[in-house]
């Protein structure tokens, strides 16, 4: 069955080699992957994860060479570099890197883009179903309002939910002071009754189906839910949002470095960016791809996140293990 499957696809190309790609759920277009398979004759095996922590845990527990391409976010790139888990990218092979806007190159988490190149990014923002919610929501802080009891879907991601609480208190999302974190915990637990669902994979589903009327979710998920249900609006929290940028990288031990590079370079092409952004309308650092998307897309503030939102926002960074233990404890309490 397996052989028949790839035999027909590889067609004329020589070896029929394959790469293992480990990416976020609901994030990379199937069409783009198929286009790559067609063009290169390389078969792509896709596995997915729902959080950077899942990715890091898998990279740690699996033997090296299990994955050839990964898609970690900013702080995960930083962590993986510190662990010597990433291979340097051969820039000569990344001919499409020039498509990426210089504003998103040379980031603080990987100076000089030695190990990673940006894919898409976005913010964790707020979705409101205006037909069901009376109150005006403008900030993360508004989500703590008791009138929203049992109505919210949040990301099943502790850095996002705890970080949002910290932002609502005027703190950094990377706060490590134990006393302040005790206050954060107190406030966080008041959110418990408001949360109906934790879902990182497809939080838009609950909004579209009407199971939840407010969401603290990724920007593109809001954009997609707005297409299905016109009552849904996007709100960029005034405290400044949780900003992320996801990046292509190759984990150490990959046995298909050249094929992996070919894949990444393909994903940096304008056509691939167009396919990806059409399916998953996140912030697109690929200028050539944006041009193909046209005016309408660029003008859509839910899809093409305004630059001031990004500037106001905050990236997550890695925490030491003691602080992590506090975060983990808070999260456990919230979810019990």
């Amino acid at each position, binding site marked *: *069955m*397996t052989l028949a*499957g790839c035999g027909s696809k590889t067609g004329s190309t020589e070896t029929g080699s394959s790469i*293992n790609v480990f990416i976020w*759920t*609901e994030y990379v277009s199937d069409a783009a992957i198929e286009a790559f398979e067609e063009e290169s004759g390389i078969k792509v*095996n*896709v*596995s*997915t994860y*729902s959080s950077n922590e899942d990715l890091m845990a898998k990279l740690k*527990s*699996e*033997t090296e*060479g*299990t*994955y050839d391409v990964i898609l970690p976010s900013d702080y995960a790139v930083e962590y993986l570099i510190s662990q010597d888990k990433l291979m340097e990218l051969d820039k000569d092979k990344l001919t499409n890197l020039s498509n990426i806007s210089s504003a998103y190159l040379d980031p603080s988490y990987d100076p000089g883009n030695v190990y990673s190149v940006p894919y898409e990014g976005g913010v964790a923002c707020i979705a409101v179903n205006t037909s069901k919610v009376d109150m005006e929501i403008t900030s993360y802080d508004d989500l703590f309002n008791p009138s929203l009891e049992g109505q919210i879907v949040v990301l099943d991601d502790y850095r996002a939910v705890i970080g949002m609480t910290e932002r609502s208190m005027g703190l950094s999302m990377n706060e490590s002071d134990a006393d302040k974190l005790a206050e954060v915990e107190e406030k966080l637990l008041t959110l418990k009754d408001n949360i109906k669902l934790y879902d990182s*994979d*497809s939080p*838009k*589903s609950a909004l*579209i*189906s009407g199971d939840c009327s407010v969401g603290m979710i990724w920007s593109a998920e809001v954009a997609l839910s707005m297409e*299905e249900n016109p009552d849904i609006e996007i709100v960029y929290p005034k405290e400044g949002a949780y900003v992320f940028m996801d990046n292509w990288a190759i984990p150490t031990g990959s046995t298909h470095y050249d094929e992996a590079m070919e894949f990444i370079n393909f994903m940096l092409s304008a056509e691939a960016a167009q396919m990806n952004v059409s399916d998953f309308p996140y912030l697109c650092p690929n200028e050539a791809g944006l041009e193909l998307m046209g005016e309408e897309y660029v003008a859509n503030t839910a899809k093409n996140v305004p630059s001031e939102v990004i500037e106001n926002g905050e990236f997550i960074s890695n925490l030491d293990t003691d602080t992590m233990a506090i975060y983990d404890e808070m999260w456990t309490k919230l979810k019990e």
Partner: protein
Amino acid sequence: MKRKRRIKRNKILGVGFCALVYLFLFLPISVIVANSFNATTTKPYMSWKGFTLDWYVKLWENTSLLEAFGTTMIIAVVSTLLATVIGTLGAIGMYKYKFKGKGLIDGLLYIPVVIPEIVLGISLLTIFSKAGIPRGMITLILAHVTFCIPFVIFNVRARLAGYDISIEEASMDLGANRLTTFFEITLPVLMPGIMGGALLAFTLSIDDVIISYFVNGQTKTYPLKIMESVKSGVAPDVNALSTLILIGTILFVVLTQGDLFKKSSKESGKEETKYEKKKHGKKVFVGNAFSNTVYDARRMWFEDWQYGNR
């Protein structure tokens, strides 16, 4: 009169209650079957958009789903074969020979049956990770063989309980060697138990989610593929495949159990003489074995285990 009316009323209540329970049991199944004909094309594929057979066509284009199904079948067949051979030999050995550490092995056999699957899953994950064995087909098969073996052993052991070891000695006295004795005497007697154990191992293997979830690496089994699609909304082609599998199993049961429906369960089984067994042929014992599904059999092992400890 009054009593009769009361009995009648009770009977109606009883039938009504059972109907409700069956409704409860079959409700999600009917949702799955109905949704496989749903014309919706947008995630999360929940609202009804009209009748279509498209998904049964599209299913054959979903190579990754079919591949995952193929993988599950390969793993199930290989681990069933291995677990059946190893388990049958083990059950016979433990029945025939006394040795040091027998109690320990016996105790270890109960672990996969008793402890929650997640514990077995993470413990295999940690040991594979420590030993540097890459997760994939091999680790999946190892894990499945491990949790299937006890189920085979308990099934065979139940059969051994009524087994008179002296016929083996008689056979050897008559000049048959050990292998001949095994294939001619021991194996036929144990066959129903072995078949029951094997079918059970197969059932457990194809439906396993929790243990596979921790040891799969890049390899996707059908249940894991479903787990992934559950996250973003199960597409109706998955429902279509599930419906086909369901129809397949029901057909299999009806074909193999056909004549069993006519008999009460007490008649079949141990009381049958060898001659009768031959007469009924394979059909009966495959049918019997099949009704020994996971639930049935698990109960057996719990009882077995309970007696073992007395």
